[in-house]
């Protein structure tokens, strides 16, 4: 699988914002973890939830708390693939003034202090389309974003984003679902770079979890079609589930469970309390401990 070389001249787009980035943060991170013999903890948080300052504080604390890859949810009014927790997070974020440009600004500030942790933006197409796809990809790369997950752009429509993402050196991370059959897998995987995100259930985020048996059958099926790292998401809530997913695949994505902790920490008006970020980061520490303790089988 060829991937864009972030060390190439266009990477000079990472202008001025702190330490120089190593080439291909996503590939580098997964390779390093493979050498350690463990999977990645991928954590999701919605930008601007419940406000910019709190969410930036959490973002900055994530690498130290043990997140290996950071997924930042881009708020959208109509998150079709998300359950109630992330829907509410999006509404809190939009109320707090979130915009796509604002999210890129947060990443820029994060990058000023962290050159190594991969950052992936996850969201829906319309805000990107409204921003302008080419300009967005360039600005995202310049801000220090490494990859994109655009939930409602399947391979059939990806030609709208792919050339621009590639030109900017952004990985386009694709979702593979239990409904993605053998005939379709090669097509979905062909355009994927960075890692593959396995949506482990047929359903929306934060609703139910896949069984161990279902995962044990699904992961080898996808591995036969790709050499890329494989992360499992949707329905991973506990340290034990995260450890198991990270052992089975190359990474475990935890989203709703963290968003729920954040939501539970807010006051009656939905505002952050002094220990909101600490509560979220403590949970990340617990997840990281479990993932680090789970050595991968041969």
């Amino acid at each position, binding site marked *: 699988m060829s991937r864009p070389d972030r060390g190439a001249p266009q990477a000079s787009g990472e202008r001025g914002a702190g330490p120089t980035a190593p080439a291909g943060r996503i590939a580098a991170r997964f390779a390093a973890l493979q050498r350690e013999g463990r999977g990645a903890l991928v954590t999701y948080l919605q930008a601007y939830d419940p406000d910019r300052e709190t969410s930036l504080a959490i973002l900055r604390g994530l690498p130290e708390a043990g997140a290996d890859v950071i997924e930042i949810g881009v708020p*959208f*009014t*109509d*998150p*079709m*693939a998300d*359950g*109630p927790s992330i*829907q509410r997070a999006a509404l809190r974020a*939009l109320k707090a003034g979130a*915009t*796509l*440009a604002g999210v890129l600004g947060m990443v820029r500030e994060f990058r000023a202090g962290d050159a190594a942790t991969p950052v992936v933006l996850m969201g*829906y*197409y*319309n*805000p*990107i*389309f*409204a*921003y302008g796809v080419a300009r967005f990809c360039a600005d995202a790369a310049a801000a220090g974003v490494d990859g994109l997950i655009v*939930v*409602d*752009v*399947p391979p*059939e*429509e990806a030609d709208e984003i792919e050339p621009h993402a590639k030109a900017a050196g952004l990985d386009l991370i*694709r*979702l*593979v*679902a*239990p*409904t*993605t*059959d053998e005939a*379709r897998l090669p097509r*979905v995987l062909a355009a994927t770079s960075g890692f593959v995100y396995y*949506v482990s259930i*047929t*359903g*929306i985020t934060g*609703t139910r979890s896949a069984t161990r048996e279902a995962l044990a059958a699904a992961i080898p099926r996808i591995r036969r079609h790709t050499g890329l790292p494989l992360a499992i998401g949707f329905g991973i809530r506990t340290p034990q589930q995260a450890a198991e997913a990270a052992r089975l695949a190359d990474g475990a994505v935890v989203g709703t469970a963290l968003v729920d902790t954040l939501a539970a920490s807010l006051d009656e008006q939905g505002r952050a309390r002094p220990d909101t970020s600490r509560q979220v980061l403590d949970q990340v520490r617990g997840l990281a401990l479990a993932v680090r303790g789970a050595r991968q089988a041969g």
Partner: protein
Amino acid sequence: MSKPLPNSFRQGPDARGRFGEFGGRFVAETLMPLILEVERAYDEAKRDAAFMAEWRRLLAHYVGRPSPLWFAERLTRHLGGAKVYFKRDELNHTGAHKINAVLGQILLAKRMGKRRIIAETGAGQHGVATATACALFDLPCTVFMGATDVERQQPNVFRMKLLGAEIRPVTSGAATLKDAMNEALRDWVANVADTYYCIGTVAGPHPYPMMVRDFQSVIGEEVRAQLEAAEGRLPDALVAAIGGGSNAMGLFFPFLDDPSVRMFGVEAAGRGVETEEHAASLSRGRPGVLHGNRTYLLQDGDGQIREAHSISAGLDYPGVGPEHAWLHELGRVEYVSATDEEALAAFQLCARLEGIIPALEPAHALAHVVRLAPTLPEDRIIVMNLCGRGDKDIFAVARHLGVEM
């Protein structure tokens, strides 16, 4: 017009489900294989004579098609201009045009072996039609309806329950049609194996805009034959209300390649297109991606979807079918709008002059007919789609007129 006109306006969509740049299949990967399955099944079904014959049989004997084409003589005299005809789709079983496409889709769902039906609804007309077809075919039916709409469309909510459907009030967002559609899509993602999503309008991912249009085109095909019999010619103008745009596509599509036929799609202007409270996505929106397709959307500068407003729950949607977006850009169809007040006035006018209480949706179309007819000579013919009856709206209208019921 800056873009070259196609040889035919009736060739769309292309293999990717696009009408020009509009349409497409913008759905999550989990749904994509299912969308492709619906497309394959529909392609086969529409070429299967037995399938189409069964649909036609249901239209004739269950729905009561063809619906009459009524010369609205008193209205014509009152307006003093072109002759006005009503296509009486409000006389269909269930009281609106929605049943035409629902029966086609339920037959398709059965053919695909699906055992559960879900639908979204705004005014409740599509929900009632879907619940009706599910009762007839003995399929469990779940209807997603914004909690705001549940409140303002109580008669239809009760109808759906009588028909055995489960109603899921949706409280996210503004709790109207857009949010009901989000929730239906979320349910579908979670129940891909056994569930068919019966979409009520010419929107959503390909093949829905094409499939719903094809089924609804029975409206325009009948008008063509009926007007030929009554007047020996084509109409000069067609007028239909636009929410998602299914009744309008059904009326317009068979006439798109007849250049002498002008077409008017009437969007809901709510409290006025110059205010923030309207549902005029073509007049005031811009292209974006929502609910599986690219089309004109009401949205802010950052691509966040704005809430629509209309007195009519059936038009209260911030988007529009992609084929309308395409016809709008090509200039083939003229998209205009009517306010809540204009629709209310037309609603009352129709009741008093023609003895027909229209739904608030076609009352918007009528509001444009009221403007248009007097500007045309008496030998011109306007056909308006009276796509639904107003029983469901009398409580809302009474409230607006300050009448206690």
